[in-house]
């Protein structure tokens, strides 16, 4: 599977799991896309740990330091898996993985060279020294506990947007 | 070709018409069926209830009655499965009996399998009538792997229409001793099965195991249903 196919399959599977998907032609488009996804003025947690996060942080006038107070988290994640349309969020470089859990809206930026074809490829990379927390995220939080009716957004985000750069 | 007919205790005691139909079919397709008079029961009720010694006694008796090289044919998926799969287990630590059990297992045919693969009865252009639905009994399908043969035979019946029932492979609730030990659940399952049968609109339901058909017939009767319950052997023999 080449890089193009990986990206395509990843986005296709993520969309099947009810994630919003966005494929960017280049890094310049990131700001425009984010402006369209995140409503202006909402409290946003954007940790600024990577170059991509730094580059967009000033888009959010109401940027909060504590993810527990945020309505949305905008962050770059560790990687992704094409096989299942899954995001891999890891507690590397001081990242708070639960920042993608508490706010109702999670916006994940994925670098296309970090999309693994299969689950095995991801685990092969982490198995020698796994981070304290590796969380695979596929679509928004969900339940079917009441009459088997799907409800979105139980304890985790009710909205998940994925931007591939 | 000489074949040994294992009637099964249920057919012998309750449903001689199924045995007679089986005999007619075998004869029509060039076999020379012999009914060894010493036969009793395959031992399945004891085996399934955990009475291993009793089951072994029954199995040893079966093996002596059905000794030889001729194919053993039986109109029951679950009894065929008992011989093929469980006899070797019962004699796993007795090399002489184990060899006998394995040989008997290889020689044992459930009727529909024999009719399709050996007798090629589905090519004979048998006649049928009405609308028929089919219950795929558990041991026949899951244990013996006989899934297509009964359908092939039904499809070959000229003048009859086949309608599949929903969840044809779901257990009817007979389960041998299960029926006696947990009758309420057994009844509930049979009722559900009977409802599936009626929902097809068929006028006849058939299958390859008299135990299941007996259970189903009872549930249909309780519903006041007019659907006829007949073993596949009966339907085929009627078309001769």
């Amino acid at each position, binding site marked *: 599977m080449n890089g193009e196919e990986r990206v395509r399959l990843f986005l296709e599977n993520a969309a099947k*799991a009810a994630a919003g998907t966005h494929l960017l032609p280049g890094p310049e488009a990131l700001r425009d896309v984010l402006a369209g996804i995140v409503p202006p003025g909402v409290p946003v947690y954007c940790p600024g740990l990577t170059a991509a996060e730094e580059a967009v942080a000033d888009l959010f006038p109401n940027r909060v330091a504590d993810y527990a107070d945020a309505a949305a988290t905008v962050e770059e994640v560790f990687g992704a898996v094409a096989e299942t349309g899954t995001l891999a969020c890891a*507690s590397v470089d001081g*990242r*708070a993985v*639960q920042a993608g*859990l508490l706010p109702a809206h999670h916006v994940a930026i994925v670098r296309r060279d970090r999309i693994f074809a299969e*689950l*095995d490829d991801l685990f092969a990379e*982490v*198995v020698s020294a*796994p981070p*304290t*927390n*590796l*969380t695979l*995220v596929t679509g928004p*939080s*969900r*339940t079917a*506990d*009441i*009459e*088997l009716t799907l*409800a979105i957004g*139980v*304890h*985790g985000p009710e909205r998940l947007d994925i931007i591939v750069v | 070709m000489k074949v040994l007919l294992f009637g099964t205790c249920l057919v*012998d*005691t309750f*449903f*001689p018409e199924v045995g*007679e139909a089986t005999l007619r079919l075998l004869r029509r397709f060039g076999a020379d069926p012999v009914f060894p008079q010493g*036969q*009793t029961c395959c031992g399945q009720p*004891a*085996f*399934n*209830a*955990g009475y*291993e010694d*009793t089951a072994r*006694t*029954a199995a040893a*008796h079966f093996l002596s009655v059905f000794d030889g090289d001729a194919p053993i044919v039986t109109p029951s998926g679950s009894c065929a499965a008992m011989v093929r799969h469980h006899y070797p287990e019962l004699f796993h630590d007795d090399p002489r009996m184990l060899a006998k059990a394995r040989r008997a297992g290889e020689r044992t045919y459930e009727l529909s399998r024999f009719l399709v693969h050996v007798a090629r009865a589905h090519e004979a252009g048998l006649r049928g009538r009405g609308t028929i639905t089919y219950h795929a009994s*558990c*041991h026949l399908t899951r*244990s013996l792997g006989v899934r297509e043969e009964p359908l092939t035979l039904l499809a070959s019946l000229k003048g009859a229409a086949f309608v599949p029932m929903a969840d044809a492979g*779901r*257990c009817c*609730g007979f*389960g041998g001793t*299960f029926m*006696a030990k*947990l*009758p*309420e*659940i057994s009844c509930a*399952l049979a009722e559900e099965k009977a409802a599936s049968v009626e929902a097809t609109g068929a006028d006849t339901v058939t299958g390859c195991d008299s135990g299941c058909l*007996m259970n189903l017939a*009872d549930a249909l009767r309780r519903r006041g249903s007019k659907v006829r319950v007949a073993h596949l052997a009966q339907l085929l023999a009627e078309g001769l």
Partner: protein
Amino acid sequence: MNLGQTTLRFRQNSVRALEDVALRAAMKQAADTFGAKRAEAFAPVSDLEALRDRASGIRDEVLADLPRHVETFVASATRAGATVHRAKDAAAAREIVAKVLSDRGAKRIVKGKSMVSEEVDLNAHLEAAGMEVFETDLGEYIIQMAGESPSHIIVPAIHKNRRQIGRLFTERLGVPYTEDPQALTRIARGALREKFLSADAGISGANFAAADTGSLVLFTNEGNGRMVTTVPPLHVAILSVEKIIPSLSDLPAFLRLLPRSATGQAITAYVSVITGPRKPGDATGAKELHIVLLDNGRTEILAGESRDILKCIRCGACMNVCPVYRTVGGHAYGWTYPGPMGLILTTLLTGMAKSHPVVDASTLCGACAEVCPVRVPLVPLILQLRRRKVREGFPDPKERRVMAWFGRAAASPGWFSLGQRLAGIFWPLVRAVGGKDVAGRLPPPARIPFRRKAH
């Protein structure tokens, strides 16, 4: 909530369940929905049999030398900074968890769904020790609020309809009545959010534990499992020893099989892989992680003829296809684990004396073994238990007499024919004595048995 084992009353329990029309409809709907979704989810998996072989092989490998894998896990988890406790039995597990919590002054506990915690009846013990335990899985939350126990291992509140849940929320939470699942879910989210943020400790189970890395793996959908394991300062995980897999790199096989088998999802919304507590420089993870490894009879099972049941990964697929389970539901089994897997585990873990009627709760139809993703030989295991039940003398004397007679008849055509003749003569009596549920369902014996016509 564990309301005391009632497995000995399986038949009475099942009769009660059969009379509960709403429960039966809900169970059937759940089983059918999951069954259909399962089939759908596996349809695109082309190499399913190879995948099952692989997963089954990994589970066999673990059981072949469980003590060594447990040692490796303990060493790895300890190296990662976790404190590992070994609990011999349920009482030890309860004590360990209670002590870890009380030593740290923990009073408010949030809990993720864990069958092992049900097995050891953890909540009642912690509550008796003065702690508040909040179930956070939506289904468990509803059940806890209603003071009931789960009826399905995946959808614990399946027996409650939306109106009942709406009324329950109005009564207990004082919110305006709604029966919209999405709105009810939002209410639960609000009520539990505050609990997560203020909890002193989180308790979770684990679906797997990787020996080579010492990692715990949790499959969840709602996000409560993630909350419980990352938000409070203290995380206590309780799992049984056989949940171990040799390597984290074995996980993909189970990631592909378990969610598909359980709910028909290609993967659960969340999979958490937790390796030790928060370390310097980390911004994620509990500050302290305690792992309680429960044996509770597993070592004994491992040494015996039923060890293959320990391959089970608790997907629930065998239940959804089981004709008995889908008809009577989980409560009837009378203990933590229902369905084909459950009746085996219940008998092995609680003993034949407390559970022998449930080994009959199978028609031996084999639907369970057909779907088991790790090829647990469920039917042979049930048959083994029935043999043990007979060996240990549990069947009632009437059954033994019938079987003794049957044995004699099966070995002798003379006795057999006599039996047939007697059955014919005494048929009205048999019907009367056997009762309408059993003998009333049999047709009368044929006037002339087949053997006398077969020439």
